[in-house]
C-alpha cells in the first residue's frame, strides 16, 4: 500500500503550486524531520509527530508518537481511526491536511496546506497603519467629536435646561431656586458682590429673559426705594447728548446687540468677584450738566459745571406761608445778598449777639449760666441735632424764656406764667385772673424792660405789678390788648393779626416754622464745618436786626461756599479770595441717586471708605493715563 502526499504552496501571484509524491509502505510518519514521509516545515510540529498506519483499504489510524496532540476535525486528539472514504481534516501546527481517497488508485491522499504565515512579519502587516498610532490611542476624529459633544452637553444644553426650568421665578422677590448646583452656574463669569451674594444661585433673578440684557425692572424687584436720578430714561439718555467719534460706534454696536443705554447695570457692574460691589464708574456729572440746556431745552435745571467757576447760584427753599404749621408752604428762591424769609418770628440777631449792649450785660450778670461769655453765643439758643448735621429748632421755654419771662402773678412762692404757644389759654388765664377778683391791678408784661435775668427778675416783675397797680387798667380786656399789641410780650416776638376768634379776643399769632434744611438738592453738613465760627458763614447774623433777612449763606459773597470751596481741580473765579482752598467735586454735595442722606461718597464707613478710595484712585490713575 502507499500514501499520496500533495503539498500545496502559494506563489506570490496567488496561484497554487502542487507538489505530489507517493510514499510507499503501510506506515508513514508526519513530522518536521526531513526524513518523515509527510514533512511539515513547521516549528510547532515535532520532528516525528505522528504515525499513520493503514488498517485496511478504507481505514487508517493516526497516532501521536511523543504525546503531542493534533487536531482532527477541530478536535484535539492523541490517536484516531479514520475512514478515508469519508474524508477528514487534520491540523498539525500551522498546517491543515485534507484526508481523502484517490479515486483511481484508492490510496489515501493527504493534501497539505500552510494556513498561517511562518512569522508575524510574514503575515504582511499593513505598514501604512502599523507605523502610526492608529489603534493605540483613541482616534483624533472620534475623540474630537466626543469631546465636543461632551462640552456642548455640559456647558450649553444643561445650562439652557436649567434656565428654562426656573425662568418663571424671575421678577419675584423672594423666589429662589432649590439649593445645589445648577447648570447655568457654569456660565457665571465671576462671583457676585457680597451685597448680591444671596442671588448667587438664582441667575434668573437678573437674567430674566434670554438674549435680553439685564433691565432695570429686575433690579427694582428688590430695590424699591432707590431714587431715580431722573424718572424718564429717555431724557437721561438725551441729556447725555449724541455720543461722538468712537463712543458713537460703541453705542451703535450696543444698540445692534440689544443693549440699551441708561440702565442701572451700566454703572453698577456685577460679576466682578465677591467683595464690595465695584465702585460705579466715574461718569462725570458735567458730561451732561455742563451744557444740558442745549440738549434738553425744556429742562428747568440751570447748567452746572465746575464748582469753582460755573456752578449756578444756590437755591434755598424758604418759607412762603406758615398758616399750616405742620406743612408750611415753601418756595425755592435764588439766593441773593438781600434774600428774605419770614418764618413768623421777630428776632434781632445782631442785638442778641452784641457784646456791648444790655443783652450782653444780662449775660455777664449770670456767670453761672453763661461762664466766661461777653455776650450771647449762637449755641446758647441753637443746638445741633444728634447727627450734628442740622440744628434742632429753638424752643422758647428753653432758650428765650430765661430772659423773656411770661410770669404775671405770684401766689405764695409760686409764679404764674402765661402759657406760651396757646393764646387761647393766655386770654383765658388773664380773664380768669381779673374775673377772680384777685388783685385788680395791671400787670407789667413788658418783657422788653431791662432787668436782672433769672428768678429774681421774675420776682421783680411781680413786684412791678403791685407797684403799677394804680397806673394801669384793671380790666382783663385792657391787659390782653396790651399783651398782643406793640410793647406787649407777644407782639415783641410774634406777628399778631386781628383775624383770631373770640377765644383769643380776636388776636391771632402767626405760626412760627423753623427751617431745618434750606438746600435739598445738595448736601451740607454742619458736622464737617465745626472748626469755623457760625458767623464765618452766617455773616449777617452779626449785623442785621431784620428777622426777614435770610441768614443762610449762598454761593458767593462773604461767608459763601466759595470762600473755601474751589472747583474739583482748584479752579476759582478771579473775584473769589480763598484762603484755605477745599477742592470740591460734584459728589461732595450731590448724589446721583438723591435721597435724604449724605452723598454715598461721604457716608461710607471709614473701613470701607479706605478701600473705596484706593480703588477709585486706581481708576483715576487710569483716567490720567488716558
Amino acid at each position: 500500500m502507499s500514501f499520496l502526499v500533495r503539498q500545496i504552496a502559494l506563489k506570490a501571484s496567488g496561484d497554487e503550486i502542487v507538489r505530489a509524491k507517493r510514499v510507499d509502505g503501510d506506515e508513514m510518519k508526519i513530522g518536521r524531520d526531513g526524513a518523515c514521509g509527510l514533512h511539515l516545515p513547521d516549528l510547532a510540529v515535532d520532528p516525528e509527530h505522528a504515525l499513520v498506519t493503514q488498517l485496511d483499504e478504507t481505514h487508517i489510524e493516526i497516532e501521536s508518537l511523543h504525546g503531542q496532540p493534533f487536531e482532527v476535525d477541530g478536535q484535539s486528539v492523541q490517536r484516531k481511526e479514520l475512514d478515508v472514504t469519508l474524508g477528514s481534516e487534520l491540523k498539525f501546527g500551522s498546517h491543515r491536511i485534507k484526508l481523502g481517497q484517490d479515486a483511481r488508485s484508492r490510496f489515501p491522499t493527504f493534501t497539505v496546506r500552510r494556513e498561517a504565515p511562518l512569522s508575524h512579519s510574514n503575515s504582511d502587516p499593513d505598514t501604512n497603519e502599523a507605523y502610526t498610532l492608529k489603534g493605540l490611542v483613541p482616534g483624533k476624529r472620534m475623540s474630537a467629536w466626543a469631546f465636543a459633544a461632551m462640552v456642548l452637553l455640559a456647558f450649553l444644553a444643561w445650562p439652557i435646561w436649567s434656565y428654562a426650568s426656573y425662568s418663571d421665578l424671575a421678577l419675584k422677590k423672594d423666589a429662589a431656586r432649590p439649593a445645589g448646583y445648577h447648570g447655568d452656574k457654569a456660565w457665571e463669569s465671576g462671583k457676585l458682590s457680597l451685597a448680591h451674594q444671596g442671588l448667587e444661585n438664582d441667575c434668573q433673578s437678573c437674567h430674566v429673559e434670554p438674549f435680553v440684557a439685564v433691565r432695570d425692572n429686575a433690579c427694582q424687584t428688590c430695590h424699591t426705594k432707590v431714587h431715580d436720578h431722573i424718572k424718564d430714561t429717555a431724557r437721561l439718555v438725551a441729556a447725555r447728548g449724541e455720543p461722538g467719534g468712537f463712543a458713537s460706534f460703541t453705542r451703535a454696536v450696543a444698540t445692534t446687540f440689544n443693549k440699551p443705554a441708561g440702565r442701572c447695570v451700566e454703572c453698577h457692574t456685577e460679576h466682578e468677584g465677591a467683595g464690595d460691589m465695584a465702585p460705579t464708574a466715574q461718569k462725570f456729572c458735567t458730561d451732561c450738566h455742563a451744557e444740558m440746556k442745549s440738549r434738553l431745552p425744556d429742562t428747568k435745571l440751570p447748567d452746572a459745571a465746575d464748582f469753582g467757576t460755573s456752578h449756578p447760584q444756590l437755591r434755598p427753599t424758604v418759607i412762603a406761608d406758615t398758616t399750616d404749621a405742620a406743612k408750611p408752604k415753601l418756595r425755592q428762591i435764588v439766593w441773593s445778598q438781600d434774600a428774605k424769609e419770614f418764618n413768623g418770628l421777630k428776632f434781632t440777631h445782631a442785638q442778641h449777639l452784641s457784646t456791648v449792649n444790655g443783652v450782653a450785660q444780662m449775660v455777664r450778670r449770670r456767670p453761672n449760666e453763661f461762664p466766661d461769655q461777653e455776650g450771647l453765643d449762637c449755641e446758647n439758643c441753637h443746638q445741633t441735632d444728634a447727627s450734628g448735621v442740622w440744628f434742632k429748632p429753638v424752643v422758647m421755654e428753653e432758650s428765650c424764656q430765661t430772659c423773656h419771662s411770661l410770669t404775671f402773678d405770684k401766689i405764695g412762692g409760686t409764679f404764674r406764667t402765661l402759657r406760651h404757644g396757646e393764646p387761647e389759654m393766655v386770654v383765658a388765664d388773664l380773664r380768669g385772673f381779673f374775673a377772680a377778683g384777685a388783685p385788680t391791678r395791671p400787670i407789667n408784661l413788658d418783657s422788653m424792660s431791662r432787668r436782672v435775668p433769672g428768678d429774681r427778675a421774675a420776682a421783680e416783675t411781680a413786684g412791678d405789678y403791685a407797684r403799677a397797680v394804680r397806673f394801669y387798667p384793671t380790666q382783663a380786656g385792657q391787659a390782653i390788648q396790651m399783651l398782643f399789641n406793640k410793647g406787649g410780650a407777644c407782639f415783641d416776638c410774634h406777628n399778631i393779626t386781628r383775624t383770631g376768634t373770640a377765644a383769643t379776643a380776636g388776636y391771632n399769632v402767626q405760626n412760627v416754622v423753623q427751617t431745618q434744611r434750606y438746600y435739598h438738592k445738595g448736601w451740607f453738613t454742619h458736622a464737617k464745618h465745626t472748626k469755623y465760627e457760625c458767623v464765618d458763614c452766617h455773616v449777617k447774623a452779626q449785623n442785621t436786626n431784620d428777622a426777614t433777612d435770610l441768614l443762610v449763606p449762598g454761593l458767593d459773597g462773604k461767608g459763601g461756599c466759595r470762600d473755601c470751596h474751589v472747583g474739583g481741580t482748584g479752579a476759582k473765579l478771579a473775584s473769589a479770595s480763598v484762603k484755605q482752598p477745599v477742592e470740591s467735586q460734584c459728589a461732595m454735595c450731590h448724589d446721583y441717586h438723591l435721597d435724604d442722606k449724605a452723598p454715598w461718597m461721604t457716608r461710607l464707613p471709614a473701613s470701607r471708605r479706605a478701600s473705596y478710595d484706593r480703588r477709585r484712585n486706581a481708576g483715576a490713575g487710569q483716567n490720567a493715563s488716558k
Partner: protein
Amino acid sequence: MATLPHTPDKGDFETAATTKSSTSTRTPKTAPRVRRDKVTSHDSFLNYGNGRWWKIAIVIAVVSFATYFLIDVEPRHNGGSWYGYTMGTIGFALILWLTLLGVRKRAMTPGRWSLKAWTSAHVYLGLSLIVIGTLHTGFQLGWNVHTLAWALMMLVILSGLFGIYVYATLPKALSANRYDEDGAITEKVMIEQMKQLDRQIHDAAQPLDPEAATIVERSLGENVFAGSFWQRARNSYPGDLTRIAMGELRKLRNFRPRTDDDPFERVETLLSKKEALLAKLRRHLQLKSWLQAWLYIHVPATFALIAALSAHVFSVFFYW
C-alpha cells in the same frame, strides 16, 4: 550655511528646490549665474518669508499689550468691555482660521499662499493667540465655561508648541536611526528585512528539538508592532519574546555538547540579528509616536475648544 541670494527674476536658474513660485514666466535677461554652493534651499516653515509671520506675531503681541495698558476700562479689564469684545472677536476668528489648517493641509500649493506659508502663519498667529486670548479674559479666571474655553485654547497652543519642538528636534534622530552602513532604509524595507530574517530563523530552526522549536516559534509569532502607546513612547518592552527566546535558547545550549554545525548557534545568531533590527524598528516607532502623539491632543482639543467657545459666546448673549 552661507548661501548666495537667489533671485529667479534676475535670471538665476530655478530648480524644484529653489523655486518660490513655479509660475514665473519671465525670461532671464542677464546671463544666469551658476550656483555651486547651494546644497539645499530648504527653508523651514518656522522661518518662512524671512520670518514674516513671527515678526507679525510680535507686532500683534506688542500692540495688544500696549492697548491693554493704555485703554481705560471701568472698573477693570474684563471680557465684557469694548476692548474685551474686540479681543474676543479677533481671537474667535483667529481660532476658526487656525482650525482651517486641517482643511488647507490636504492641498499643497506653492507661492505666497503655499502650505508652508499657511503653516508658518498658523504657528505664529497661534502663538500670538496666547496674548490675545489672555488679555481678552482680563485675567479674570474661574471655574466656568469661559475659563474652560481659555484653558482648552492654552492646551491646544501648548500641545502645538510641543509639536513644533518635536518637529524641530526629532526628525534628525529619526534619520540617524534609519541609517546604517548600507545607507538609509525605509519603513517598508525595515519590514522586508524582518520578513527575511524570520524566514531564515524558521529554516534554521527546523532541526531543533520540540522544546527549542517552541521557543523560537514564539519569537516568530511575535507581533513586531505590538505594545501599548506608553510602551512605544518609552521604547520599553518588558517580556519581549525574541529576547526571552534568546535567553532560553542559550540556557538550553549550555547543557548540550558542542558540535561543529550547531543549529542552536545559527538560530541564536539570527535571533540576535533580529533583536537588533527590532530595536531599530522600535526606536523608529518611538520617535514617530512622539512626532504624532501631540496631534492626538491638538486636534481633539481644538474641537472641544470650538465647542466650548460656541457655548461661551452663546452664554454671553443668552445671559446678556
